[in-house]
Each structure stands twice: as C-alpha cells, then as structure tokens.
C-alpha cells in the first residue's frame, strides 16, 4: 500500500487496456477522503478507487476492522460511503453503485481520526471479549443505565453520520404508473422477457438498478450472442425496446418493494449521476406501479466463503473481480488466489490471467472437471484441487494466505499448509438467487441441493421468476424462461404474441453445481484463531453463530436478532445462506428445515426524501381558507388551525397583546356589535319525505313538530351514548332541512349519517349533500346588531315579533340574497348571515362599512370561545372527549323521553350512566379573580393528601372574562353537581395550590335577557 499511496495523482495503476464499458475519452476527477483521484465516465466509485489501487475504503461496524470492496453490485456490505457535503450529505451509499462524476465528494465512514489509523480498531484486538449478544449480556444491569450505555455504544458501533443540517436541499418526486407487465431487472433474461411481452402491444415497464441494461453479462468477456460480443446483443435489445411506444425503460431504478395486488415501488435515481443537476428535475423519483403481471429477473448474488481473514481488503467475490476486469478495465490484483467450490470462478481465473495477473486456483472440490477446468489448465494456471484458503493475512490489504488440503465438505485439514504471498483473493461459494421480491410478495422457496441455494417455487401474486433469480444460471435456460414468461404474462394481460427466437449463445459449457463447504477449518479450536466472517456489515463471525446455537438459539429469526446477522443496509444479501447453513450444521439439521428469515422491503435502502416526495412545506397538507380570508389578513389578524381550516384567531390593533385584543373584542360584542367569520361551520343539506324522521333518529330531541323557518339545537350521540357533535338545524321546507355541524366534525358527521342511511335505514327517503362551502357566513352579534343590519339595507322586518329568536328568514342585505338565521352562540342578539360563497367577501366588507358608526368589531375564534364560556355553552371536543353524555353536561332536557329510538338511546339506559361519580360539567370561580386556572389543571378535594392524590377531574375551559370582570372556568368533575358551593383545589407544577368555588357554569346573563338586544 505504501507504494500506491505515493503514486502520482491521476495514475490509475490498476487500469488495463481491455475493451470495456468505460469511456476513456471522458476523464472524471473526484475526491475520496480529501484526496483527488481520476477515473472515467462509466466508472463506479468502487471501480475508480480500485483503478487507483485503493482497496481500503471503510471500517467495520463493531470491530472497526479495515474493509475493502467485496462486490460490484447492490449487495455490497462493506464499501459504504458518505457522499456529498453539507446539508446534501448522505451516509451509507454503496460505492459499487455510485457513478462517478466531476466534483464527486466522498468520505469513508466509522473511523476516528482517519481510515488508516482508527482508535476503534482496539475492539478487534479485544474481539474475543465481544461475542454475539455481548451488549445484551454486559449492559443488562442496572437497567436504568441502559440509556447511558446505549449512547456510547451507538457512537462506537454503527455506520455513517447523517448530514448535520437536517433540511434536505434536494427535490424529490413520486409518481403513479400502470402497466400490463413490470419486468424487474434488465439483465439478459429481463431484456428478453420485456421484448417478448411488449411484442404484442402490452404496456411494459423495464426497470434496472444499474446505469445500463445487461446485468452480469456486462462483466463477461467470453460469451458471444448471435456471433457478436454479448454487449452488442444488449445494445440491440435495448435500442429495440427504447423505440417501442408501449415500453418504458427505467435505468438507475431499483424495484425495492413488492406489495399485495402487484403494487410495486421503484426508486429512480434521476440526477444522482450528474455533475450539474438540472433544477427542474428531481434528484430521485419514487414510482408507485400497479402491474397486471410481474416478471422478476433480479439475478443472483455470489456467496463469500467463510475462512479466517476473509474480510481483509483485497479479498473479493470472484464474479466481482471479473466484472471489474471486463466492464471497468480494472485488474484488482497482480498476484491472485482464486478460491472456489464451483466452475464459475474459473472464468475469473482465466480473465485475471489474460489481464496479466499471476493466478493460483484453490478448488475445494477433489475432482473438478469440464471445459473451464481444462481451459484454465491449458493457459497454464496452477490449480490445487481439494484445497482451501484456510487463512488470509494483511493489514490494510491482503498480503499472504495459507492454503491447505481439506477433506470432502471441508470440515478438516488433511495435509501440509502452503504459504503464498498475494494481493488479491477472489472467492466464490456459489450463487444465491435473489429471491427478495418474490419473497416480499409471499412467494414460496425450495432448496436446490445441487446448486446449494433457495429458489422460488409457488408464487402468490400474478408473477414469474426467470433467469438467475429462478436458479437458472445458464444463459440459454434463462432466455428460454424469459420467452415463456413474456408470452404468458402478455397473454394473461390479453395480448397475443408470437414467441421470439432465443439467440445463439457461444460460451464454454459449465457445471452450475457447487460443493458444500460452509465453514473452512483453520486448525484452531472453536472460538480461537483469526476471525472468519459470515456477515461483513454486522461483523458476525462463524463462531458467533455456533455460539448462539450453543446458547439455545434455534430459530433463524432469533439467530438474526441475537447475532444481528442479516441486518443492516445490505440485509444479508451475501451472508444469509452461509449463516443458516452454519446454524443448520451446529444444530445437526438440514438447511431447508432451518428456513430463511423473512424478506421485507426495501430491497436496497430507499431515500425517505423520495418517499415523501413533494409532500413537504406548503404542500404537506392543504390549508383551507374562507372567502373572507383576504380581509382578515389585510386587517392583521392572527390565525389558528382548526382541522385543515385556518381561522382568524384575533385581530390585534397596533401594539395590543392577545389578551388586550381578545378583551376588546369580547367587550364590543356585548356593548355594541361584533362580527365573526363562521364560514367554516359544517353545513349539510337534508332533503326527502323522511327527513324529519331521520333527524329524530340521529339527534336526541324531537324534530317532527319543528315549524318551517324555525331552528333547533341538537346533540348527536355515538351509539355508545357519548356526545359526538352538536349544532343548529333549521327547517327550510316540509321535507327540507339545513344542518350545521362543528367545523372539525363536518366530514365525520356526513360520513356517519350517510353510513346509517345506506346500511341501516335504506328505507328512509332522505338524501344528504354537503353545502359547507356553498355558503359564506358572517355572524353579527351584539345589542346593535339589528340597527347595523337596517343601516346595511335589509328588506325584512327585524322586530322580534316578526323574526323571533331561533328562526330563519330569506332576505337581501345590500342587494345580496341571503339566508339569515337568528341563532346565538354569544347570548346576545345575533344573526348568522349566509350568502352564496361568491358574495362572502362582499357581505363582510359591506357589514363592516355599515357598522362602522357603531364601532362594529371583527372578532376571532378566541373571543368566540370566551363569549360562549361566559354563557356556559359547551364546545364539543373541548368540554367533551368522547366519554361525556348529555346527562354529564346537565342537558337532560335535550333527551326525548317519548321518541321510540335514537342513536345512543339504549346505551344511555345502562345502569352505569346514572352513577353519581360520573364527571359533571360545573363552573369554577377562582378565589383570586385575576388568576386564570390553566386548562387541563386537575382538581382535588384535599390538597394535603398523600401522593398519589385522588383526582376529581379537569378544567376544560378557562378564560379571563372582561364582561364578568374576573376569571371564569368550566370543568368536568366527579360528582360535580353535588359539590356546588364547595371549594376545590388545583396543585400546580410549581408547588403552589389554586383554589376555586364550584358554581353553576352560566356566568353572564343567566336569565337570558339579552337575547333580543
């Protein structure tokens, strides 16, 4: 390594001249850990680092061991990088999937202070004392200290750091898409299946996580298709698909989730690979795809072999080494050891040899045969059959191995150990089909004893597995499956296709069976000797797994959680099969009996930003505004959110505090006139010959005899007898009513009533229509209300004789047609004036002008709350909480004794409803009239009683009332009505105790004398 670190900048010492997929005419400069390097367009960060001779790229999770690049794909467990700077920085990105661009800035992770010298590496020396379950065993006592322990452990263990500035500056989007056939994976089989499926006109989406289609074929040198290099065939297929209007190609797109009903989620990295990112494009886009049929062509992952020191930088997967040579023009080592239990790694040995490396093969099999074996032998590669690398050594890069002859299944060393110097170990433990999407969709798996892997069996969704992810590693077999699946999937979507011809493939014949060799012996006793890693990302060794088995962990799910095998950002793509094979061996079981852990989405980590998309900031949730909103804003109102609505809260003048403003508004409504924007109240138009009967059933009181043009207050209960909503309903005609609901309850009440009509009372002739937004409502309240209406120009007689309290008239105000309801939530003379919403703002400004001479005062929701509390009027959701009955509120008068039924009637007759210790609504007067008891304060009878005290109940509403000249409050107290006249106490958080007298909750004008002005 010292030789390499002195190499001049831009000297790509491992680059070879072979034809490959990088563009040598486009040099790219990037920074890794503060040093500048050169690569080429088409490189990944991993291939460019390897080209520069950099193998050490990270430190491991627990032991802080030096780690290198293991793979060339999305299964990478080690080479996790923090990408970018500042707010846009992102941790734990796989170097094998990062396309480099000019100016790319990357850092290694989990090291202090530097990658080459990391103080945390002491954990590796002490590793014998950190076995599986170490944290659980050690930090159990005392339990109260766990939070403190955890803080330190979290810092020492773990991977990358998120950006310091938590506001992600990038734009993300999401979109919906529909197709007949989604093909997940664009390797040879995926391309073939997509073309077959699309040939009859079906809508096809083909997604692949890589920057170009072709999958593993891009990394092969010795396969020709139709007498052309494989990459020519890939190019031809891709061009053909791109030209079809019914095909959508999505490169750089990971199918990361497979849900029920063929709903799949895809993450497209739209501009991540660009040096200059256009502002109009999202960085990433999440696709939510609904597909008729799914063809899964995810490919396979090569398994590492589990031998001592298999995690040292320079120990790589054999297939990955081949990909770096053939796809990226990088030869990762000059003195290579290839270790394998199968034929496939021989291709790597041959390609390494061709690239100029000295190669030795250690084949675990005693008698390998076949064309690849012969080819390797013919070019002069040394082959040791029945041999294993039993240990690798090296600090920041592998430097030396020990090789020894082993018995069948490699359970024992059976001869002399050979030492060899090297700078690369290419290992292959066989292929594991990527059954992730199939399994996410609850498809079944079966164990293939010959190929030593799980492969898909029955599917649960309309889907097909083809190619390597189906265990069909042979190219021609995969292409045949692709044609079959494409034809069937198109047919199932209603499209006829003629079967395409599978192209001629020329390549060395290969046996796809692997020899079982799960845990390579190293001559040491169990638990001793150098570590052999199963799960690289989580630092789980083969000894951790056998220890867990000894400690009684038999279920693979328990093993996963105890040892953390298969967790983390890679979810054990390279480790799971090795782990459960070693567990099976330790338990004396067969692998299929052990089974796999559950496969869950996401296939690879997906950005939360892409899942949020544009549902951020102002688009996070709609804000609903009334038609009078512009006026309130111009008047400097403060606002509060009520559900999705934004309502004027109070209107401060100049330097007024909220307290001052609310007091002024409350006084004005009682001394002259106040104007409230009540447009947000829910309004439901009820029509039909059974409308009155319907109201009888949904409200507790009687509605038959309500006269036309008359209004009535109603309480609505849930079927459990508890108050759900309230409001005033008016009879507009014999079969026509106008109901109002609370602002927040409107949608729920409409749904509730519609459900009763459709499911329980379909015989009732009633229709409901929401008219909340059809009408804008201004409520004019106060002794001068009628005068102001007259001055505003009204065409009806407002005398109480002609227009009494609780009635409705059609009228014109300043020429605007209106429905005027004489109802009151303040106890004052009050008119709720409804006009078509288009006239809402005109009405408001007209009334403000007409009332100016009388000091008309706009008031907000806070003053409204004080005004109604002065009168003891409840607010549903403030005094009530879903556990309050009309009786609890002292409102027995509103419950009809004569109606045969209404919703909640039966529940109210339960014995418990009459218990004397139910909470009752009462009023409170604090002994200090200036003190406003905090809402939510809990009442006790005796403030000196020992803890925990007996709680009586809580304050629900509490205000300073300028009209009463003192504070007032309402509360729900156990047996409250029996406490009338007594003093109750409120112990405060600061140790003080407030006291208040229990009184009737009507504080102002208890006789209701002001209602007529």
């Amino acid at each position, binding site marked *: 390594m010292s030789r390499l670190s002195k190499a001049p900048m831009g000297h790509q010492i491992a680059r070879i001249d072979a034809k490959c997929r990088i563009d040598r005419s486009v040099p790219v400069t990037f920074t890794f850990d503060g040093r500048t390097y050169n690569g080429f367009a088409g490189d990944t960060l991993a291939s460019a680092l390897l080209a520069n001779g950099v193998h050490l790229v990270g430190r491991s999770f627990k032991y802080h061991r030096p780690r290198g690049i293991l793979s060339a794909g999305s299964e990478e467990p080690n080479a996790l990088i923090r990408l970018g700077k500042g707010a846009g920085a992102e941790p734990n990105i796989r170097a094998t999937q990062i396309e480099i661009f000019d100016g790319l800035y990357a850092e290694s992770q989990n090291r202090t202070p530097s990658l080459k010298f990391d103080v945390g590496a002491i954990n590796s020396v002490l590793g014998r004392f950190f076995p599986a379950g170490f944290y659980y065993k050690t930090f159990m006592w005392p339990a109260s200290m766990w939070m403190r322990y955890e803080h330190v452990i979290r810092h020492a263990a773990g991977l990358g750091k998120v950006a310091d500035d938590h506001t992600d500056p990038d734009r993300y989007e999401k979109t919906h898409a529909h197709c007949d056939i989604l093909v997940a994976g664009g390797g040879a089989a995926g391309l073939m299946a997509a073309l077959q499926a699309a040939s009859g006109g079906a809508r096809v989406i083909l997604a692949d996580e890589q920057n170009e289609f072709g999958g593993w074929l891009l990394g092969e040198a010795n396969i020709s298709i139709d007498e052309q290099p494989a990459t020519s065939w890939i190019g031809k297929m891709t061009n053909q698909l791109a030209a079809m209007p019914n095909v959508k190609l999505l490169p750089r797109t990971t199918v990361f989730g497979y849900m029920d009903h063929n709903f799949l989620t895809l993450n497209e990295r739209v501009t991540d690979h660009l040096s200059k990112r256009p502002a109009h494009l999202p960085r990433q886009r999440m696709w939510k795809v609904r597909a008729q049929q799914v063809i899964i062509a995810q490919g396979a992952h090569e398994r590492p072999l589990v031998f001592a020191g298999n995690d040292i930088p320079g120990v790589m997967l054999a297939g990955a080494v081949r990909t770096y040579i053939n796809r990226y023009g990088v030869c990762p080592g000059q003195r290579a050891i290839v270790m394998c239990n199968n034929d496939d790694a021989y291709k790597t040995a041959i390609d390494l040899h061709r690239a100029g490396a000295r190669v030795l093969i250690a084949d675990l099999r005693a008698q390998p045969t076949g064309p690849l074996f012969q080819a390797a032998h013919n070019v002069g590669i040394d082959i040791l059959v029945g041999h294993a690398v039993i240990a690798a050594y090296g600090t920041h890069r592998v430097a030396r191995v020990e090789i020894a002859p082993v018995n069948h299944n490699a359970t024992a060393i059976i001869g002399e150990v050979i030492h060899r110097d090297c700078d690369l170990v290419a290992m292959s433990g066989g292929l594991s089909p990527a059954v992730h999407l199939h399994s996410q969709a609850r498809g079944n798996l079966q164990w293939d004893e010959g190929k030593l892997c799980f492969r898909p069996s029955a599917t649960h969704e309309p889907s097909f597995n083809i190619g390597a992810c189906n265990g069909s590693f042979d190219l021609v077999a995969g292409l045949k499956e692709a044609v079959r699946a494409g034809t069937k999937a198109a047919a199932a979507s209603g499209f006829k296709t003629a079967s395409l011809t599978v192209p001629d493939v020329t390549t060395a014949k290969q046996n796809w069976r692997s020899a079982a060799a799960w845990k390579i012996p190293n001559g040491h006793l169990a638990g001793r000797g150098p570590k052999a890693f199963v799960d690289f990302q989580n630092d789980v060794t083969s000894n951790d797994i056998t220890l867990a088995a000894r400690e009684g962990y038999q279920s693979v799910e328990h093993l996963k959680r105890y040892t953390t095998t298969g967790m983390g950002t890679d979810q054990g793509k390279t480790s799971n099969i090795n782990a459960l094979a070693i567990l099976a061996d330790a338990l004396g079981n067969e692998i299929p009996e052990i089974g796999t852990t559950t496969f869950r989405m996401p296939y690879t980590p997906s950005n939360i930003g892409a899942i949020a998309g*544009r549902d951020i900031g102002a*688009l996070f949730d*709609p*804000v*609903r505004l009334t038609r009078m909103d*512009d006026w309130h804003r111009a008047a400097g109102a403060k606002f509060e959110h009520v559900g999705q609505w934004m309502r004027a809260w109070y209107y401060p003048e100049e330097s007024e505090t909220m307290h001052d403003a609310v007091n002024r508004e409350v006084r004005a409504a009682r001394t002259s006139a106040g104007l409230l924007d009540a447009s947000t109240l829910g309004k439901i138009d009820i029509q039909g*010959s059974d409308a009155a009967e319907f109201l009888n059933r949904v409200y507790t009181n009687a509605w038959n005899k309500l006269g036309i043009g008359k209004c009535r207050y109603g309480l609505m209960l849930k079927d459990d007898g508890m108050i759900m909503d309230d409001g005033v309903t008016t009879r507009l005609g014999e079969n026509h009513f106008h109901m109002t609901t609370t602002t927040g309850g409107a949608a729920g009440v409409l749904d509730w009533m519609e459900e009763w009509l459709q499911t329980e009372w379909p015989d009732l002739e009633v*229709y409901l*229509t929401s008219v909340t937004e059809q009408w804008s409502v201004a409520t004019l309240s106060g002794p001068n209300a009628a005068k102001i209406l007259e001055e505003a120009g009204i065409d009806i007689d407002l005398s109480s004789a002609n227009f009494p309290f609780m009635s409705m008239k059609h009228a014109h105000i300043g020429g605007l047609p209106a429905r005027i309801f004489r109802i009151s939530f303040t106890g004052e003379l009050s008119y709720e004036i409804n006009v078509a919403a*288009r006239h809402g703002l005109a009405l408001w400004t007209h009334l403000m002008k007409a009332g100016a001479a009388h000091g008309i005062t706009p008031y907000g929701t806070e003053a409204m709350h004080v005004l109604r509390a002065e009168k003891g009027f409840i607010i549903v959701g403030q005094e009530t909480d879903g556990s309050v009955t009309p009786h609890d509120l002292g409102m027995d008068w509103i419950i009809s004794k004569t109606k045969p039924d209404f919703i909640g009637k039966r529940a109210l007759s339960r014995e418990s409803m009459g218990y004397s210790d139910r909470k009752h609504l009462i009023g409170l007067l604090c002994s200090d009239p200036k003190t406003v008891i905090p809402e939510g304060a809990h009442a006790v009878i005796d403030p000196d009683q020992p803890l925990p005290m007996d709680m009586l109940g809580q304050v629900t509403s509490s205000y300073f009332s300028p009209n009463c000249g003192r504070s007032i409050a309402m509360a729900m107290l156990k047996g409250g009505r029996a406490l009338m006249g007594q003093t109750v106490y409120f112990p405060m958080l600061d140790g003080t105790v407030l006291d208040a007298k229990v009184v009737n909750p009507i504080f102002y004008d208890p006789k209701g004398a002001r209602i007529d002005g």
Partner: protein
Amino acid sequence: MANSFESKPVFSGETALSNQSASKSNNPSGGAVGLIFHEMQHLGKLNIRGDHSLKAAIKAATGCHFPPLANHFETAGERRIVWLGPDEYLLLCESGKEKALHDTLTNTIKRSHFAITDVSDSLCALSLSGAAVRDVLAKGCSLDLLPAKFGAGKCAQSLLAHAGITLMALPDDTFILICRTSFAPYVHDWLVDAALEYGYQFTV
C-alpha cells in the same frame, strides 16, 4: 370540448381562484409548455341525488341522457351529467343557468325521493390540457390515465395528492378537474409544482 365552457361568467362575485393571477413557466426542455390550465369560473353545478326514475325529467330539462354509465358522463351542448355514485350525479351547466335548471327539475320531477342542490360555489372546476397533462396528474392521482382506459367520456372520483377530486376526460387530451373550492388554491399550487419539469401556463 372544454372550450365551450369558456364563455364569460354572467354572475359577478369571487371564485375560488379569482385572486390567483395568471402565471407561467417555460418548458425547460424547450417547446410548448406541458400543462395549460384555467379555472372555469362560475360554471353552474347542481348535485343530483336520485335513481332512474328521474330519467325523463332530466332529459327534458338538460338534453342529457340519464343516467350515465358508472364512471362516465353524458354531454348535451354545454351541459354534462357526471356519474358520482349509484344515486349521485353532478350536473354541469352554463354559468348562471343553475337556478333555472334547479327550479325546472324540482317542479317536473314527479316523486318525493330525490334531491337537487346548488353546489356552484361549493365546487371549483379547472380545465387542464397540454402534452404532459397525464404525466402531471399521475404524480398525484393513482388512476390509470391511459387514453384507452380513461378516454373521453370517462370520469372518476379520486385524490390528487391530498385533495379529493372528480376527474373527467374530454377529447383532445383535455380534462376537467373538480375539487372543493377551499382546496382549489392547494390544487393550483400543487399543479404548478408538479409541472416544473414540463413548464405550465395558468390563465385567468
């Protein structure tokens, strides 16, 4: 054609988006903007509840065949009857004609179990067109908008991001999108944002 609704409003007063000024952004890839939209101000809207027995009265008053098939709408001149549910429909009509139509229908329907309700001010209708209109809508709406699946004459109630909408497909890649008026500013802002990569034009 959506254009047939472009006659000037005959009723004064505010609409959901009358405060929204005209705006546009260029197509970053060059060429025509991908989304063109405007509010169909004061379009008359009546909510109709009832069953097949209303057929004759509605045909006589509006000229529209009734009832439309599920998830379809019927057109007669400038009037459209939109299927919302098995017993719920929305009548769209010329600005200012809603009251007369309401009265005609109420007076000619010869049975008790129906409801006609003026919702002209309750709902906001937008006309949307442009080469990217489907791509823009797909960002917030899970319906399959392929012309072969959701072509002229089709309608559906769905969501556009967080707003409930009724979407109607017209010929020539034009859509009518109806939402509650209080959601209209959100829908406007959402469309402008979603059209970033295509460019848009909002006209008044």
